[in-house]
C-alpha cells in the first residue's frame, strides 16, 4: 500500500528501525515486523501533527480503531497511541504515536476527521486527564459524574 510513502511525506527525519532501548524514541517511521508486534508501520510524530496524520490516513481509506493513552511517569510524558487499520482489502495496520508533556497534556482532537474518535478520546481524557483540544464533549463517560481522579495515571492512589 501507498501509506508508507504518504506517511514519509510528513517531512520527518526517517529513524531506522532500532532495537528497543531505554532512551526515548525519536520521531519518525519504523517498519515493524507484523508477526512480532501485530502492526506493520509504527509512526511517532509531534502532537500538533496528529490531525494531519489522521487526514492522510483517512484519505487512504483507513479506519481509526482505537485511541490509547499511556502514562510514562518517569519521563513525565503521556503517550497517545492511535491504531489505524485498513479494511478495504489486505490488512494493514498503522500505529501513530505522539508524546505530550505530562504537566500540559494538550493534544488536538481528531474527531473532526473520524467521528469514532469522539468516544475514544473522551475515555482517554477521563482515564488519564489528557486534554483533547477542540473536543466537543469532554465530560465524564464511564466513570461517575463526580469523579475527580484519573484512575489510569501511574501516581493514582485509590
Amino acid at each position, binding site marked *: 500500500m501507498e501509506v508508507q510513502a504518504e506517511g514519509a511525506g510528513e517531512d520527518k527525519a526517517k529513524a531506522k528501525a532500532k532495537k528497543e532501548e531505554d532512551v526515548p524514541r525519536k520521531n519518525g517511521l519504523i517498519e515493524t515486523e507484523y508477526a512480532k508486534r501485530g502492526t506493520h508501520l509504527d509512526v511517532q510524530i509531534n502532537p500538533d501533527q496528529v490531525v494531519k496524520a489522521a487526514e492522510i490516513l483517512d484519505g487512504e481509506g483507513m479506519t481509526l480503531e482505537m485511541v490509547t493513552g499511556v502514562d510514562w511517569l518517569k519521563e513525565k510524558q503521556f503517550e497517545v497511541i492511535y491504531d489505524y487499520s485498513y479494511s478495504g482489502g489486505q490488512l494493514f495496520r498503522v500505529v501513530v504515536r505522539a508524546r505530550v508533556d505530562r504537566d500540559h497534556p494538550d493534544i488536538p482532537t481528531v474527531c473532526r476527521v473520524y467521528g469514532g474518535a469522539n*468516544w475514544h478520546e473522551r475515555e482517554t481524557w477521563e482515564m488519564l486527564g489528557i486534554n483533547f483540544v477542540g473536543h466537543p464533549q469532554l465530560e465524564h463517560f464511564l466513570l461517575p459524574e463526580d469523579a475527580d481522579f484519573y484512575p489510569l495515571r501511574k501516581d493514582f492512589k485509590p
Partner: protein
Amino acid sequence: MSSLAQSQLRETFELNIGPQHPATHGVLRIKVVMDGEYIDRAEPILGYIHRMHEKMGENRTWNQFWPNMGRLDYLSAMAYNHCYAGLVERAMEIVVPERAEYIRVITAELNRIQSHLLGFGAYIMDLGGFTPLMYAMDEREQILDLLESVTGSRLTYCYFRFGGVYNDIDDDFITGTRAFIKRFRPQIPMYHKLVTGNAILMDRLIGVGPVSADMCRKYGATGPVLRGSGVNYDIRRNEPYSVYPELDFDIPVYKECDSMARYMVRMDEMVQSCRIIEQALNKLPEGPVMAEKVPKALKPPKGDFHYAVEAARGTFSMRAVSDGTNTAYRMRLRSPTYSNVSLFEEASRGMLLSDALAFLGSLDPVIPEMDR
C-alpha cells in the same frame, strides 16, 4: 420524565430510555431529544456497568488477568480468550500445538453460534415476537452444555492458556458437537420460515437504520454491522490467525446497509460456523494441547504488542504495553460494540423512536463489553 425545552422553531422534549429497559439489552441509557415522534438527538450514556478492566490488567500478573477475559462480552467470551492468548503468545513467541489451535477454533465457533442465537432470539423479542426466543434458547442451551463439559463454566469461560488450552476435549464432546451440528443445520431454514419472511418483521427491518460503509469506517464499526454494509471484512480472513487459513468458509456480506442486512449476516454466519466446526473436527490432529516450557512467571519483553480477533460482534483487539515486568504497564481493550454503538447518535437522527430501538437491536450491543 420529560422536560420541555423551548426553541424558536419547534418544541422538543427530552426522554430517557434506560438504564433499565429491555430494548437496551442491559444497562445502557439513551438520552433522547424528541421532536414529536422523531428523534432529534439520541445520546447513549455508558458506564453503568464499568468495572475498569484496563486497570485490572495493570495491577495483576499476566496469568491473573485470565478470568477477566470471560467477563467482558459474556456471550462470546471464547473469542476474547483467543485474543488474550494470541497477544501474549505473540509477545513471548510461544508456539501453540496444532491440536490446541483446532480446539480453540471449535470452541470459539460454537460460542459464536451461541451468541448469534441469543442475538437472534432477543432481537425478535425486542420487536414483539416471543416464540423464536424459545427455539433459540433450546439450541443455545445445548451449546452451553457442550462448552460447560470442557470448560467448566457456562458463560464466563477461562479456558485458554498461554500455549494452549486448559484441558483436552473428549469423545463425548466430539460426538455431542457432531450431533448438535446435525440437529442444528435444518433449524436455520426453519427460523427463516418462522421469522425472516414475516411481513411485520420485514416492514420493521427493511430500509430501517441505514449505516453506510463510509460511516462504519469513520466510526470503526466492524463485524456484522460492517458486513451488512457491503464490506467484505472479517479478521478471520483479512488478518488470519490460528488455523482459520486452513479452513474453508465464506464471509456473508449484504449490501443493503439496513437492519435486515445485519440480521441476515448473523443468520448466515451461523451456517458458516457450522461448516468451520465440522471441518475442524474432521481435521483435528492428535497431540498435546499445551506447549512445553511455558514459564509460570511470564515476563514479556519491553515494547507494545497488538492482537486482533473476530469476536461475534466485530473486531476485538488488545494492545499491551509491557515494561518487561510480570505485570502489564498498560492494557488496552478495544471492544467492538463500543465502536458500533458510537455511530448510533449520528445514524438515528430523524428516525422514528420505534425504528431507533429496532436499529439499536440490530447493532446487537452487549453492555459489559462496551463499558469494560
